[in-house]
């Protein structure tokens, strides 16, 4: 293997962009050095390796820093769009809860239902607040947005526990959006162990809320049966509506 081939191998220590820009010039310069010095000496190669060891890590670090800055800028744009979406979904959530309230008020409403609707409105208002906090970038940084999103997640989990018939779409928005935003807010701006740990912790905390809420299936079919008792349905249709609400194996559904 010639000295130039060894040097070309050593050049792989440099960032690809730098190699593409200056690799040819560096090889030419190395060729000049080879003409004027004895390449078979230890001193020559010690100087070459020292030069690579001194300059390559600094250039690698510089390339990572530039890439990190570019990623941060992209993330900032995504966060702005996500904040606008959060604002819209917050408004939609409030409107949806009002519609739910109006629909529910036509019949008899129990306390749990009222509380669930109130919690739904509260969670939507918090989402709205999170959207505003991300957009405005307060002097306390992203902390208010994080706290508001955790509160929204907790309200949504409580609403889901109180009202297990919540629609899939509402659950997706109520749990999915805050969890996604929290991941983005906890995403480290610079690579760090603290940033990685906070993301893992946030995922554990964030995802355990919907998982806990998912356990909130009704233990009996009474309410579902009562819902359909006045409707003009066949016995089979009534059973197919009520069965999904039963979580106990072998429960006999008695229709009124």
């Amino acid at each position, binding site marked *: 293997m010639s000295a130039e081939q060894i040097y070309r191998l050593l050049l792989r220590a440099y960032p690809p962009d*730098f190699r593409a820009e200056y690799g040819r*010039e560096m090889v030419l*310069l190395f060729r000049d050095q080879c003409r004027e010095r004895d390449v078979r000496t230890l001193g020559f190669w010690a*100087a070459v390796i020292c030069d690579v060891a001194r300059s390559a890590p600094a250039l690698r670090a510089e390339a990572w820093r530039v890439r990190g800055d570019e990623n941060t800028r992209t993330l900032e744009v995504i966060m702005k769009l996500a904040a606008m979406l959060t604002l819209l979904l917050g408004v939609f959530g409030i409107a949806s809860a009002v519609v739910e309230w109006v629909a529910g008020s036509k019949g008899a409403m129990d306390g749990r239902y009222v509380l669930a609707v109130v919690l739904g409105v509260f969670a939507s208002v918090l989402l709205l607040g999170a959207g505003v906090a991300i957009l405005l970038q307060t002097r306390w940084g992203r902390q208010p947005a994080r706290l508001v999103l955790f509160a929204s997640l907790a309200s949504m989990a409580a609403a889901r526990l109180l009202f297990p018939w919540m629609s899939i779409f509402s659950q997706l928005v109520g749990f999915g959006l805050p969890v996604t935003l929290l991941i983005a807010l906890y995403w480290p701006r610079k690579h760090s162990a603290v940033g990685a740990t906070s993301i893992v912790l946030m995922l554990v905390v964030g995802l355990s809320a919907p998982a806990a809420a998912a356990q909130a299936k009704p233990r009996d079919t009474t309410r579902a049966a009562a819902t359909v008792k006045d409707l003009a349905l066949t016995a089979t249709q009534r059973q197919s509506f009520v069965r999904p609400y039963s979580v106990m194996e072998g429960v006999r559904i008695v229709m009124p």
Partner: protein
Amino acid sequence: MVAKGRATRLPEAYLPLPPATFHILFALADGELHGYAIMKGVAVHSEGTVRLGPGTLYGSLKRLLAGGLVEEGAERADPERGDERRRYYRLTPLGLSVVRAEARRLDAMVRAARRKKLIGVRPA
């Protein structure tokens, strides 16, 4: 190191320069040079005390180009070496101001060292 926001910065804002950067700018004060000529120039001006390798030289040139202290000239073959085409580099007006400012700073240091009799006096 080369500072950011070059359009608004005074030459003094770049000081003190890292030794490799100062030697490269100092060598380029002679005119447009290619990489190997800069390396040789640095070795001559520093009386052999500073030897730049290709990595250090091109790493510094990349930063100097980004900072607007140096610019690329036309690519051509060296008439003395008569081989492949090489990239030539030259000082920008800002680069010239910066190297002058650094030379003045070092000159003031040397004069201060003389006043204190740290240099220019034969040891007893």
